[in-house]
């Protein structure tokens, strides 16, 4: 008798259908015809030899079409290999910290993430829960090289994904690390929740203009809202290892959720973090409270009608971002700042 199974790339029985599998293989690769001969396509196809390949014309006809369920696709995501033809570099948003860099840019070589965080804005931004991997990486490097001719540049390469989590498949982070080593005007931030530092270390050496930024939340928050992510202890161990190897390390406490005993949770988290990470060698920390664009939140709520976090009555701030009431944020900011000042000088603490 045939069995009906989720297409996560391994055989699963019907009984396991209800629980999304943490398996990170792909049953299907959708590949743009124009991307078939790209070297990265060939490498990625080798990683998933059992995957069914479906040729497509443009990734947008899959990824951007209406009527998709981000949540359903997220449970068993497919991988789309495509070429990015425009917008290889974006100007940074005013709602994200630029750490004092005037020329702040970001790019998106991968759309969507392996993790499934309940608060993630990607579920409000994209119509699809599938992953898009732009395999024309050379064009992205070229775009940055062109922009560098106009002046120094601060570049975030892992905003709309978690690039380090993919490093075992293709060493994209290592390529950027090596690229930035040769470009003196370029500073890169790689933001991650992954504990996959060793995959980067295998292919690249530390240098001062490639910042590894780990996002951390109290363990209770992580367990409840950050599905599929490594435990905080593993992220911290990765951060420590990276710092000892000479990489600049940033810790990002973002989004801060003012839930339950959050003051005590953050006190403990800071204590745990700074027991592992030498504050003197730490580049800096970044702190941001949960905030969301109104339209994104509306879509996120539709994707997760059962989310108590997303469906609470958020309030618009002066910039029309939905977040906690200003008074609560002020109070929480003072609490977190004073706690962080126990470990770090004022100049190393950035609030978004």
């Amino acid at each position: 008798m045939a069995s009906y199974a989720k297409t996560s790339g391994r055989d699963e029985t019907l009984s396991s259908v209800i629980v999304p599998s943490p398996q990170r293989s792909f049953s299907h690769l959708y590949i743009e015809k124009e991307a078939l001969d790209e070297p990265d396509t060939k490498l990625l196809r080798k990683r998933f030899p059992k995957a069914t390949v479906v040729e497509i014309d443009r990734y947008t006809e899959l990824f951007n079409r209406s009527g998709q369920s981000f949540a359903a696709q997220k449970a068993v995501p497919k991988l789309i290999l495509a070429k990015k033809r425009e917008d290889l570099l974006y100007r940074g948003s005013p709602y994200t910290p630029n750490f004092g860099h005037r020329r702040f840019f970001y790019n998106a070589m991968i759309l969507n993430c392996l993790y499934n965080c309940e608060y993630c804005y990607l579920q409000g931004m994209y119509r699809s829960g599938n992953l898009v991997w732009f395999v024309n990486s050379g064009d992205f490097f070229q775009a940055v090289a062109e922009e560098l001719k106009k002046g120094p540049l601060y570049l975030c390469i892992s905003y709309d994904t978690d690039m380090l989590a993919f490093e075992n498949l293709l060493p994209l982070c290592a390529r950027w690390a090596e690229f930035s080593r040769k470009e003196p005007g370029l500073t890169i931030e790689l933001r991650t929740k992954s504990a996959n530092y060793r995959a980067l270390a295998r292919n690249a050496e530390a240098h001062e203009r490639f910042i590894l930024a780990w996002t951390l939340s109290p363990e209770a928050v992580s367990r409840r809202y950050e599905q599929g992510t490594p435990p905080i202890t593993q992220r911290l161990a990765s951060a420590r290892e990276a710092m000892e190897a000479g990489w600049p390390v940033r810790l990002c406490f973002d989004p801060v959720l003012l839930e339950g005993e959050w003051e005590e949770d953050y006190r403990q988290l800071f204590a745990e973090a700074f027991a592992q990470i030498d504050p003197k060698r730490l580049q800096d920390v970044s702190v941001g409270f949960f905030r969301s664009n109104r339209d994104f939140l509306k879509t996120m709520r539709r994707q997760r009608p059962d989310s108590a976090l997303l469906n609470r009555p958020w309030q618009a701030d002066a910039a029309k971002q939905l977040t906690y009431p200003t008074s609560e944020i002020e109070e929480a900011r003072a609490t977190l700042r004073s706690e962080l000042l126990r470990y770090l000088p004022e100049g190393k603490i950035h609030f978004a």
Partner: protein
Amino acid sequence: MVRKCPIRLGFVFALMDEARPFIREWPMKPVHPLPGFSFFQGEDVAAVVTGMGSERASAGTTALLSWIYTENRALAPHRFFGRTSRLPDFSLFNIGLAGRIDRNPETLGQTFLIHRLRHQATGETFYPDLLYRWEGVPEASLTTVAKPVFGDSAKEGLDADLVDMEGSGILIGARAFLQNHQVHFYKIASDLLSPMKNLRQTTGPWLQQSARKLVPGLKRWLSQPPESPPLTEAQFVWMHSVAEKLRFSFTRTKTWEQLCLSTVLQGKPLPLDYHPPANLSKKDQHEQWHHMQKLLGVTKP
């Protein structure tokens, strides 16, 4: 038939010959909810036989889904609240015959899961969300054409493994109700682009075989409970009765629903015993709105 549970599975067939083995295997009985098409239903499944061609397939699919939408909504309206799909907890299957474009005789009688569907007339391409798959069922691409195609010359421009006359019509008919992941296509390779004699005798055993393969698995899949709705029926009914009694505008109704949902998700009870008076003046309605917010613990920032 008095329905006890919502319909969770729907089938669209072009021909009665295609439908028969599945209707018997399930089993389903003929019903007449709407004119123009042949409908069948079982305990939690329903089917329509549309006739051949994309237009009839589209119209028949819309008719089937309109009927199911009305039935399911009447039975369990709370299951529709806050859901992305207009017809939640439901999946649609098109199972039917298709010509094999590569004319490989070894594929005759095989059932294929469709992973790409192209509408030849418009060039539009659809990629079904393959969230589930059958072990041992190979995949194929499908092009839907307007007229039957025969011979080698017909292969030009089809750009697929299989060709049928209904697939894209079903998709168009389903769009108003379903999300991509709720629509599935299975095709049985029935011919090699040549006119068929004795269709029933040739394809009958293949359709039987396909039904025996697919139906038990679908039944097991149906035995899984549907997703729990965020509000219970009692909470949903109360929320709506308040909105109706206080004559909330569309925008205020949405705000009210969000407040109720948020309250329930925070683990707080809704005051189901409180019923605001009806026929209030505009001023009193406004005061009641503030009172309801207070009951739900909302304080002005």
